[in-house]
């Protein structure tokens, strides 16, 4: 089957033996936007190759081309010395290429084995499959219970199931698009050790990430893209985070935590939460008596391992989920279970964790998505009507100010790259007079430059008197921004720390559930 793909007499052009995948001059255009501009890319046998680049640089597009989701407009793909035409993911899989998407493709009500079996061509029994799952998971350190139902799994575990699925199909080129952005630090560690084992087995990995320290840790070589072009491919030993950042952005940028703001005096209490309790989707109580308050000009950081009630807390605060008991006071007014309308009216902003679900209407335009929270009132509307002229003007302004790259402001936002979607959500939620901002993983999927920018915006908001509740898994982020830090563990809050590195260990312990006499 694979002989037919050999280019006629073109063996001279074939890549060397140790290159398992070669891209030559890949061009992919989308209605005007050149997402990939004659990209050359080599993946060697047994290497972990990172793809790095600003939001919208064309990384996802490139791996989609490799995985057969997009057809390149021109260019060649060589796999193991033969030129191939990858017209579908099925074809990619048959060539030994597998990809883990950010949104998983698992059936929640099925068990892990059942999900794995779904992807297999033929199998004798579920028991056999379960055996194989166990083997693979032991071999590569992908620990997961084969008989657990998928809906019970954490995000990290689901990701492992996706990888197991691919490995069972004998994939030897594994593509991971921003795999760590959804993981806790511990899960990231586990993923990395899996990747290392895969590498030792002679498999090759393409890995996309915005986190420079991760890239420096795990990859052998790094390819940096900017505006659809490959800027350079370097070996890890020959580079530094600073140099990578410079290649990405095209100019010198400061890395690491921005200067800690001088401690200011805080104003009135804006958000006050007392003894809050709420149930999760599975009918289990996930918030078990939370009390805290946030003042004007203050950033309260909530650290914690994902799945300890952060999502539910955010949802209760913004009015998307009912509290079963307790009160939420916003500027002294009881807004408990009053719905999201009241929250918005009182000047609440919300950067959701899942921007695709709670952040945007995918088929509506940029303009229409930008007015989502403000369309009710003048100047965005007059009486029953929207003021589209005004909306367009504001959109132009925001697109410029937050440098949102898009094929056009009247285009559906589903065409935006991940990071640009995030910018759009942030632009919308931070504009106007925001009294209280609930920021949940605000830098999710953002490149280094954009991350700095968001930090700046959050600090600006704080300086202008906004109260900010920052929920994040990334301790660096929490320490950089917060004035106070609390830890959430199993639906309760612990401690109240200043952002001082000396508390790092204690906070880490609390996150892991070592309570040690701390009172909730």
């Amino acid at each position: 089957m694979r002989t037919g793909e050999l280019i006629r007499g073109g063996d001279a052009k074939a890549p060397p033996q140790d290159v398992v995948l070669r891209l030559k001059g890949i061009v992919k255009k989308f209605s005007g936007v050149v997402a990939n501009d004659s990209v050359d890319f080599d993946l060697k046998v047994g290497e972990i190759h990172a793809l790095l680049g600003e939001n919208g640089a064309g990384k996802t597009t490139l791996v989609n081309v490799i995985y057969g989701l997009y057809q390149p407009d021109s260019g060649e793909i060589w796999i193991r010395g033969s030129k191939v035409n990858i017209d579908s993911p099925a074809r990619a899989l048959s060539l030994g290429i597998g990809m883990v998407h950010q949104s998983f493709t698992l059936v929640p009500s099925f068990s892990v084995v059942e999900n794995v079996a779904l992807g297999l061509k033929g199998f004798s029994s579920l028991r056999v499959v379960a055996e194989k799952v166990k083997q693979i998971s032991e071999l590569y350190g992908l620990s997961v219970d084969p008989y657990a139902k998928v809906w019970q799994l954490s995000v990290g575990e689901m990701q492992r199931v996706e990888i197991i699925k691919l490995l069972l199909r004998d994939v030897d080129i594994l593509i991971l698009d921003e795999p760590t952005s959804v993981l806790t630090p511990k899960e990231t560690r586990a993923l990395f050790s899996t990747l290392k084992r895969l590498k030792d087995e002679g498999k090759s990995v393409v890995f996309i990430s915005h986190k420079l320290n991760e890239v420096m840790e795990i990859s052998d070589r790094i390819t940096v893209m900017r505006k659809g072009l490959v800027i350079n491919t370097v070996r890890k030993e020959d580079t530094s985070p600073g140099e990578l950042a410079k290649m990405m952005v095209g100019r010198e940028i400061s890395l690491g935590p921005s200067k800690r703001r001088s401690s200011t005096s805080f104003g009135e209490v804006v958000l006050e939460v007392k003894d809050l309790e709420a149930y999760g989707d599975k009918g289990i109580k996930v918030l078990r008596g939370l009390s805290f308050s946030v003042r004007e000009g203050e950033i309260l950081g909530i650290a914690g391992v994902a799945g300890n009630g952060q999502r539910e807390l955010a949802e209760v605060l913004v009015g998307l989920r009912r509290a079963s008991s307790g009160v939420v006071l916003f500027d002294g007014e009881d807004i408990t279970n009053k719905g999201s309308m009241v929250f918005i009216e009182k000047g609440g902003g919300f950067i959701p964790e899942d921007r695709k679900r709670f952040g945007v209407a995918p088929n509506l335009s940029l303009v229409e998505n930008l007015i989502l929270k403000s369309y009710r009132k003048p100047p965005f509307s007059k009486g029953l009507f929207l003021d589209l002229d005004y909306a367009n003007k504001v959109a132009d302004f925001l697109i410029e100010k937050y440098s949102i790259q898009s094929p056009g402001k009247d285009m559906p936002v589903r065409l935006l790259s991940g990071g640009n979607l995030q910018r759009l959500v942030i632009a919308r939620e931070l504009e106007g007079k925001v009294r209280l901002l609930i920021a949940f993983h605000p830098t999710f999927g953002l490149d280094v430059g954009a991350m700095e920018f968001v930090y700046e915006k959050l600090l600006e908001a704080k300086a202008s008197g906004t109260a900010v509740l920052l929920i994040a898994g990334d301790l660096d982020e929490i320490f950089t921004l917060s004035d106070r830090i609390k830890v959430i563990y199993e639906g309760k809050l612990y401690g109240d720390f200043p952002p001082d590195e000396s508390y790092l260990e204690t906070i880490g312990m609390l996150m892991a559930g070592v309570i040690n006499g701390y009172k909730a």
Partner: protein
Amino acid sequence: MGIKLKFEPRVRVSKSFELFVMLSSILMALLVFAMFMFLSGKDALSAYKTMFLWAFMRKVGLEGTLVKFVPLSIIGLGLVLAFKMKLWNIGGEGQFYLGAMASTLLALFLFPNLDSFVLIPLIVFAGFLAGGFWSSIAGVLRAYLGADEIVVTLMLNYIATLWSDYLVYGSWKDPAGFGFPMTAIFPESAKLPVLWGKVHVGVFSPIILSLLLKILLDRTKWGYEIRVIGDNPDVALCAGMNIKKNTILTMFLSGGMAGLAGAIYIMGVQHRLQHAFSPGYGYTAIIVAWLSRLNPIAVLLVSFFLSGIFVGCEILQVIMKLPISVIYIFQGVLFFCVLVGEVFIRYKISLVR
């Protein structure tokens, strides 16, 4: 290896491409239908010529086309509204019946003596309310119990048609009607003024309504909410939109339009309620809404064209001695072609080796 079809989702679909696909689907349906006629030994080309000339060029035929155009387009507009919010109202037929029944109640039993300039607006309003009431049953059930509106609206269609039959076979039957299942004729005051032949003043209403709907959807806050909810209900919730209220309101207005169509139809054409007075306008309107790709202006064109085809089919029965079922066959073929066209619009299809 053989040749395979490859489906690649389209990134963006231009309006002109949509129009092109829509017209080709209709053309395709005409072609398939021609084959059918050919197989039954008829000359398809002359049949189409007859159909077209009759439906659009001859006075009587054009009258028939316009008469059908009015209810078809108004119900279609109502469906477009609901479909925008991804509420699959397929109960246009029942809502149309309810509008007609309410009109009859007012015209014959409650206010037969009112002046027409009071009575006609009153009936229009009553028809609207009745249709809206009927569809909001499905709306309320959907909003508060999560009941599937497809099933509920479909069931309500049966109830409505049977209820109407119950009346025209029973207490509303015209005593002087030789036992036919129909009511007495409306008083003059409840008949719409005639413009030309069978064409009544109601013929303008679709045009006005389609403009209003376009403005509603594109320019108003409410239309914006409908589009956001239709696209992503979670984000709508997050933006403080009231989904329950909007579900009920949208269903109400959607069915209200069908009820309005019923009132206009019965005052303009039928002038009485009778057994099976609708040749399935409510169902055909689903095709109209789909073919027009939820564009209110396109609804006018599509429903005018389809009405013409149906009138043309009627004349075929007479001239070429084809059975009435040709209309249904054609509708089926057309619906099929529309669905195929939909696939072409969603995906770029190419042949690969």
